[in-house]
């Protein structure tokens, strides 16, 4: 009985630090913007003179105002966290755990692998058909507007992405899920490549 509340208090206290991190992170971001980023990456200052000699706001005017407004808000957030009253609801506290980052990493790897498949299947198919004498194409670029070469990469990549995500969600993959993945890719190909003109599916817009 006594252990549970202590765990909860300790956990929420520990999690409460995330609001402090958000506050301090915002202050650090504001300092970085004002001292490093803005001077190097904005063409004109807070104020500038226009062609008629009149002083008007420069390109830095609004970004500086925004960042300047972030500072008191971040200070209020830090203050509210440091002076939080015990037993009151207060500002809701979130957190990002290592498990969350691992999940995001897994999704990124899956998306990256799917894009890789989209990029290599088309050229591989060309190479295969050239090898077997079915085609004499110079490369993927030459066939990037011809069916089925233009959509082959997308078909396999999109199927992999859908099935991979179903696998993550369910912890298993059924044969019917493979069909769903393939059907999703096929329907998207039908819509974007079959019914619409001037639309290019991945990776064809970036050749």
């Amino acid at each position, binding site marked *: 009985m006594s252990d549970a509340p202590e765990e909860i208090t300790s956990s929420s206290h520990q999690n409460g630090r995330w609001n402090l991190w958000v506050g301090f992170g915002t202050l650090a971001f504001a300092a970085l913007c004002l001292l490093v980023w803005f001077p190097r990456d904005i063409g004109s200052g807070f104020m500038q003179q226009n062609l008629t000699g009149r002083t008007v706001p420069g390109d830095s005017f609004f970004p500086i105002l925004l960042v300047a407004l972030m500072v008191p808000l971040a200070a209020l957030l830090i203050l509210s966290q440091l002076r*939080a009253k015990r037993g009151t609801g207060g500002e*809701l506290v*979130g957190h990002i755990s290592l498990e969350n980052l691992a999940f995001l990493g897994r999704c990124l790897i899956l998306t990256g692998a799917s894009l890789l498949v989209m990029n290599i299947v088309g050229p591989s198919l060309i190479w295969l058909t050239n090898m077997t004498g079915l085609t004499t194409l110079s490369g993927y670029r030459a066939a990037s507007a011809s069916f089925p070469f233009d959509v082959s990469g997308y078909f396999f990549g999109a199927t992999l992405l859908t099935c991979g995500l179903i696998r993550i*969600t369910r912890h298993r993959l059924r044969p019917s899920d493979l069909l769903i993945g393939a059907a999703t890719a096929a329907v998207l190909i039908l819509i974007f490549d079959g019914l619409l003109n001037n639309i290019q599916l991945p990776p064809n817009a970036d050749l």
Partner: protein
Amino acid sequence: MDLLLQYIGLGVSSVFYGAQGVLQLMPVLMVLIGVLVGILIGAVPGMSGPFAMAIALPILVSIFGYGNDALYPVLGCLLGIMKGATVGGAVPAILFKTPGTPDAFLTTLDGYPMARKGQGRKAIQTAHFASVMGDNFSDIVLFIAAPTIAVAVERILGLPEKSALIILSLCFMAAVVGKAPLKGLLGGLLGMFVSLIGSTMSGNGPRLTFGLPELGNGLPLTSAVLGVLVISEVLMSIEEMHAAPSSEDTTREAPEMGPPLSWAERARMLPGILRAAAIGTAIGALPGIGTTTAATLSYDTAKRRSATPEAFGRGTPEGVVATEAANSAVSGANLIPVMSLGIPGNFAAVFIILAVETIGDFSFGPQVFQFTPIKEIEGFGTILNANLVLAFGIFTMMVVANFFNWTLGGLLMGFLGHLVRIPKAVILPVIMTVSLTAAYVQDGGYLGLLTAGVFAMIGYGLRRLEISILPFVIGFLLAPTLEGLVRGAFTASGGDAFFLLKSPIAIAMLLMSLLLLARMFRQSR
């Protein structure tokens, strides 16, 4: 009055006749498709109207392009989805206690017990009748309120007051959305800041691009919003399902449907519908307050005013009426701040604004409702406010969508129960693939995809840190307008540092913003 009728007539005919006076059915067809998609999507658990609008927008832009001709078909479809989804969400809530859309959650309280008592058909027809009536009511309020507010705003408010109004709206939104208002406001400022990447105001080249020429035209808007709103939400849901996999029951049988709703019963519901619709409309007109608040408030009010409050929660049609009429009334009312002020108040409105920003040269705001006298000038053409004609065209499409909701919605609702069997574990990955493809297709290849990915990470981070997404997105969309207003006001004041404090109205609005900030600080301790 004549001028108003002339503009209404032009607006109505512009939906049905093209620029050359030729009959065009595409806008109406797209409204029909939108309503059908909306009703179907609304009935699928895990999906919602804004979700479908987010995915549909890039596809629609790919089909119809960026010209002014695309505006009606694209907006027609999006409005249809928005309205259709309000109807469809009730069916699985009633039959299986599984709300199709989040706002249909309260409908389960009385709808499901009604279905268990063998009154499934009556509950569904009650939900449909109340929902469409509520939606119609709020549309009528929109048609009257939006032009009235816009005309008043244009007459009374200058640049400083309009700037102060946007600041007040953002503070209000942060204060009412979520349980971390200070962080919500910080999120709003961050959204504004991010939208400045690649933009310029004084011809000195694009800002904040890290030297990347690809960012020189600014961030792709649709991909960014798709990433922060849809993909991040899908990621969160997939992660939750991954952490706690549940065996999905896809074999649920629909309960006994029972007798239909009679016209006498419909007539008895009208006072309750009007009360709920009024609550939904009032709530919907305020930025940031969603359908759930409207439904909760309406349900509580109906229960308190009922002669049989003990029947609530045990399967009374009054409960279904209270929630469905209120949450559907929000959809029309949330376009009041959009059309009159250009300020979106919820996610559905975000996608309507996004469509308008992406396509053609129309933009929402008080300037739309300027009743310029219509004059024929020989050899030149007709002088009129084309934006006002478009606005009345949009109203017309909403009426058409309501007609389809009345007719097809009623027919379709009886067949939607099967959609609850679509497992969320399959639908979420499919949405992810469609979203990423749409981002690539619409926004120039990998730049669009990368933008969607980066914004998905931002959205995921914000959600995990309990920072509301809505102020971030609204800030992101409103930043260019606010920057233009603030710069204009500053220049017009002759470079006065207190340029926002030049009028009593602006001072009052900023004081209210400060009061909201003080309230947020007090709440946060």
